[in-house]
């Protein structure tokens, strides 16, 4: 059909046959389908696709919804009602209580303590680990010294070793260095265990930059740090953002290192949250618990929604080897 409608598409045939054929083709074109293919908006296929995605989305959103509505209800309403129902009477009491009054052990100053601890842990840990890992990646990608690849391979394998295997040796190392239980010690831990993934990220990025740029800078007489700060860094802002996202969410969400390597006064938010919610004493205040949970999830969620595609790029970069 399609061919007949447009005889010009085959010049040989058009030349060989007469105008009559052209006429016939036009007549046929007038009766056959023509123009844009009609599109049915509600085809069975579309209903299936959008229907499935919609149901799955509801399932994924449900926990967030439950957290929000529960945290805005009073305890009487929770005891009587349905956990999925929106609050009849909105109260911010649970949020205030979770932030400023909830008890962990003897301290009753709420999650705010954990929040500030997490900030104090996350900011320096992210900065230090990213700086060190980016220099590693740069040295590996551009300077290619002897043995570099061997160390890097060990590092990547290290990413798969269960932390539990290295936990105790790390405790010993930190204790010997006098850092066990301190903030500095935890920064070291996050730098060490974050190193494989972030180094990989930077190595792959710097390898993807044209090597001739590095060569040109060497001919121009720039040294190791000169090239890093003057040539590489200004070109790498996106990848630094990606690394920031990975590290901040990762460190913020950490629980294991927080319990093993710090003392109670330095517990990060996740550890404190778990202690508040899963403490056995007293009456369970579900609304306060959910407010606390939501508060803890707020920082990574904010980063997630603000960063959008970069977050996706970050986890994809971390997951797919180069």
């Amino acid at each position, binding site marked *: 059909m399609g061919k007949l409608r447009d005889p010009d598409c085959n010049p040989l045939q058009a030349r060989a046959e007469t105008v009559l054929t052209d006429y016939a083709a036009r007549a046929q074109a007038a009766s056959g389908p023509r123009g844009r293919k009609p599109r049915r908006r509600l085809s069975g296929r579309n209903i299936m696709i959008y229907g499935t995605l919609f149901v799955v989305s509801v399932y994924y959103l449900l926990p967030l919804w439950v957290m929000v509505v529960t945290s805005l209800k009073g305890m009487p309403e929770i005891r009587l009602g349905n956990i999925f129902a929106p609050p009849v009477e909105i109260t911010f009491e649970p949020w205030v209580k979770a932030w400023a009054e909830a008890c962990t052990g003897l301290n009753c100053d709420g999650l705010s303590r954990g929040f500030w601890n997490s900030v104090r842990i996350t900011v320096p840990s992210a900065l230090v680990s990213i700086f060190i890992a980016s220099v590693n990646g740069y040295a590996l990608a551009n300077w290619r010294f002897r043995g570099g690849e061997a160390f890097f391979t060990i590092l990547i394998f290290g990413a798969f070793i269960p932390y539990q295997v290295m936990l105790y040796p790390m405790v010993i190392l930190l204790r010997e260095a006098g850092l066990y239980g301190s903030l500095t010690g935890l920064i070291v831990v996050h730098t060490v265990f974050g190193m494989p993934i972030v180094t990989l990220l930077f190595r792959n990025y710097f390898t993807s930059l044209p090597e*001739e*740029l590095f*060569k*040109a800078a060497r*001919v121009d*007489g720039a040294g190791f740090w000169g090239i890093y700060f*003057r040539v590489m860094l200004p*070109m790498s802002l996106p990848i630094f953002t990606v690394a920031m996202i990975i590290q901040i969410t990762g460190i913020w969400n950490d629980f294991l290192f927080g319990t093993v390597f710090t003392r109670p006064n330095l517990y990060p938010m996740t550890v404190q949250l778990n202690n508040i919610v899963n403490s056995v004493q007293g009456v369970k205040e579900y609304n306060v618990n959910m407010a606390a949970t939501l508060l803890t999830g707020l920082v990574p969620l904010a980063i997630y929604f603000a960063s959008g595609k970069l977050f996706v790029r970050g986890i994809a970069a971390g997951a797919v080897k180069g």
Partner: protein
Amino acid sequence: MQPSIAIRDLTLAFGAVEVLHDLNLEVGQGEFLVLLGSSGCGKSTLLNCIAGLLDITDGQIFIQGKNVTWEEPSRRGIGMVFQSYALYPQMTVEGNLSFGLKNAGLPRAEIAARVARAARILQIEPLLKRKPAALSGGQRQRVAIGRALVRDVDVFLFDEPLSNLDAKLRADLRVEIKQLHQQLENTMIYVTHDQVEAMTLADRIAIMKGGSIMQLGSPKEIYNRPANRYVAEFIGSPTMNMIEGNLDMQITPSFSAEGMSVPLQTYAFGSDAASGPAVFGIRPEHVEAGEGAEAMPVRLDAAVDLVEPLGSDTLVRARAGDRNLWARMPGQPDLRPRQPLRLGFDPARAHLFRLSDDTRL
């Protein structure tokens, strides 16, 4: 006069793989040398060794009489232009030009003067405040050349500088590079895989293959007297016609292959020519077809097999017996497949190679 660049017994190996073997090369003052070869032949590797961007395994490199074998790239007195331009994207054109000079700690006034001079020579003065992203391909390459120019050095290294440009721009910039060389009179080493660039630019061409230099000579020498079969087939388009057969030096030298015999009295043999299996080569542009063939010492009957009209002239693949021969015919002859065609050539313009080692006879 001492050579501008001298390379002695240079060897480069990555692990067990030898990329350059025992290479020797001298480049004269102000010479334009082109390293030509297909990809993977080691030409760019050699250039990187000269620049100091690759650590060599063995041998020595001298630039202006100074042993720079272990010297940092920036202290070798070279400027380098890359295929991908390699401009620093976050710096302006001015910043790109002055980066090396700042690293060398030159006084500000001196830097400004040199940048101004390079910009004037390359006619990029209006672009100085722009970022590379805002430049066209040709402008970027000019800035890249400028970056070598400001260094005020005796040796320029070009690593396939025109490969990323389209055909028209490539031809324009080729002319500009040639003019620049005539103006500056400094030594230039130019790596390319494009034989037209090599033929048009070079004082001497070094044809490389598998990490060795196959032939080093002027473009004319390389074209007229290729030292071996590889060089003969590499230079010239379409490729030289090659016929395998036997060379007989007994009474009068002649070459014979199935269905043909070519007398070779007029051929300029080398000193070590001897009878034996050989390859006979003749360039398509030296094969006359049609009427012109009758005037040639050697003639044969063939039939048109394939025609490639190029406009200015026409390439014909003709079938003679069971072998194909390419001929280049002037103008636009009217030829149809299977039509009979007379071919002819002058054995004086032919090339003979020994079959066993491919060297010229």
